[in-house]
């Protein structure tokens, strides 16, 4: 157990919130709106003019403002991207106002995290990218932030950021889940006042790297491995499911969560599921959007134990236990 925790969380979602029917009319769904509705979705959040970097900047700016943190107090930035496009400046506005198209060799060396540091004057921060784990990327950022804070005394404040937006024209449905655009930002410190990281656990199964051709096998692998990862995380934390006050999910379908709750033997009442229909699955930011909203709603109390679980392509299953 450590005293490292997530002291503050902010997020940013685009304004546009087309309904399932509107998305279906636009041809943005692979299957039917009715199926997604039955699985618990109502609408998606869709970035129109904003790039992923814009969303990250918004989320971090809010975080610094809310916590009164000076930009120069940030020692380390970990920028998580679930989509491979999120780790580049593809579709991001260039300084001159155009949109980069990744045609020039030098465009591949333009990094979102450097742009973020520059934009927000995080002048004392070292930066790094965390990617290639799909929706589990931000969990790995938290893991690395925690390890850095424990290992390096001169690092006091770490900023973890996650921002993803689907490229224009891409279908907004992945394996019966409705995908939204969005970003989140986390402030991590030693001696954190809330959300202390009690335990983390991750399993990677690279055999499933070719997600497009193994969709059915991935659905089948998801549930039993999710159960194992959750159980192993609880074991690491030295707690049982009964000790957990809230499960803060990634916003895959409510239906898949109901099945997973059945597998792990958790009551439906422990799942904070309000955002699944309203927000959709923002790829990597879900758990922390939900953590923030559950906190703001006053349903989480000081000292509550929270279980956060997510799953990303690659394949990656990640889980953590926090003490609020």
């Amino acid at each position, binding site marked *: 157990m450590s005293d490292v925790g997530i002291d503050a969380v902010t997020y940013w979602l685009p304004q546009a919130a087309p309904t399932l029917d509107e998305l279906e009319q636009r041809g943005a769904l692979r299957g039917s709106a009715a199926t997604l509705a039955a*699985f618990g979705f109502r609408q998606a959040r869709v970035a129109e003019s904003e790039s992923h970097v814009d969303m990250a900047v918004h989320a971090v700016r809010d975080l610094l403002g809310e916590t009164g943190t000076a930009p120069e107090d940030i020692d380390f930035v970990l920028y998580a991207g679930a989509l491979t496009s999120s780790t580049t400046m593809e579709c991001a506005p260039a300084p001159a106002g155009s949109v980069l198209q990744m045609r020039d060799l030098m465009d591949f060396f333009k990094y979102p995290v450097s742009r973020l540091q520059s934009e927000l004057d995080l002048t004392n921060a070292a930066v790094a990218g965390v990617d290639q784990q799909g929706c589990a990327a931000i969990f790995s950022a938290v893991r690395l932030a925690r390890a850095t804070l424990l290992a390096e005394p001169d690092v006091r404040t770490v900023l973890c950021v996650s921002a993803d937006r689907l490229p224009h024209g891409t279908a907004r449905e992945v394996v019966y889940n409705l995908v939204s655009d969005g970003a989140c930002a986390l402030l991590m410190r030693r001696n954190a006042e809330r959300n202390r990281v009690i335990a983390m656990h991750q399993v990677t199964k690279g*055999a499933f790297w070719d997600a497009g051709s193994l969709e*059915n*096998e991935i659905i*089948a*692998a998801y*549930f*039993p*491995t999710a159960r194992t990862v959750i159980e192993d995380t609880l074991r690491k934390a030295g707690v049982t499911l009964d000790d957990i006050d809230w499960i803060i999910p990634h916003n895959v379908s409510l239906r898949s969560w109901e099945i997973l709750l059945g*597998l792990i033997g958790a009551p439906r009442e422990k799942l904070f599921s309000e955002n699944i229909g309203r927000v959709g699955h923002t790829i990597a930011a879900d758990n922390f959007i939900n953590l923030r909203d559950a906190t703001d709603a006053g349903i989480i109390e000081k000292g509550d134990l929270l279980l956060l679980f997510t799953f990303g392509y690659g394949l990656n299953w990640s889980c953590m236990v926090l003490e609020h």
Partner: protein
Amino acid sequence: MGAERRAAADRRTILVTGGTGTLGRELVARFVAGGDSSVVVLSRGIASSSAFHAGSVRWVKGDLSAGDSLALAATDRDELALAVTDIVHCAADTTFTRALQDSRLANVEGTRAILDFARACPRLERVACYSTVYVAGRATGCFGETDVGGGDGFVNSYEQSKAEMEDVVREAMAELPIALYRLSTIIGDSRTGAVSGFNAVHHALRLLYQGLAPMVPGRAGALVDMIPSDFAAAAAHELYERSFIPGETYHLCAGASGSTTLGRLLDETIAAFERHRPAWRKRSIARPALVDLDTYELFVRSVEEAGNQVLLQATRAVQAFAYQLAYPKVFDARKAEAALAPSGVRVPPVLEYYERVIRWCIETNWGAPA
């Protein structure tokens, strides 16, 4: 009458239905090997007898769905009825996913037809009817040889149709010399692992191998009862030939001592996959989760709503067999064990031969042509 003709007339004539199935084929071989019987196999198609018992078996083209005529010409039927001393009724439709009316047609009406035919056989001495221990259906706990199944409902149409078939058989026991044999799930030969008839268990194993079985309903500690085909044949033959008692019902099953738990069976399955196909481990396929029925049914419903055809077929295939696992039970076989004791025929514990069956399935790609 000359001595030769008298000997021929005294010779037993055993009519076998389902003679090409897993059990029927083995029983025919044993009757032929006995040398004191004429064996007649009733079959809808004249099977290639070169495949087994060439020249020793008379094949008769008939059909149980035609009623007591068996779809035979009247003269052929009468001639057969005059000759038959024994009827061994193995024919059944063992498909779990069949519509109930179709299962009934094969298993209930087919049995009614053969019993009607039996009533017309003046030399009839013995009738064996084969059923399944899973007539117990959704019952839990201990299910005995004298118990009648169905009180708690059934998991699939096969179970229900076999329970209804037993009702027909029990009613006929008042006038015909019938013994009833309930078999457990046959999974393969205990010596070689060879599978002569694939069933729902093998389909479920294949889906697990392919990584398409995320969950199975049931409890880790629930016993799974399975038997090898060589034991099934030896026990069925022994009980029929040397311990036949009209009106009795016997269980040919593994029982508590020969069974293993569902959790252990899954572990052994995964271990066997990894041992006999080391490359399988690289695929990182997870051991299926054991879940309660509600969760499993929610998963099945979700797959149906999503319209995912591959997973739909997979879940239905697992469902037909695996639902039974959610109703833990132990089959009592004390009568059969006592009757078999003098012969030394005993069921081997499933874990003694299970790996050989898995290996055979892998090496033959579940019987697929090379």
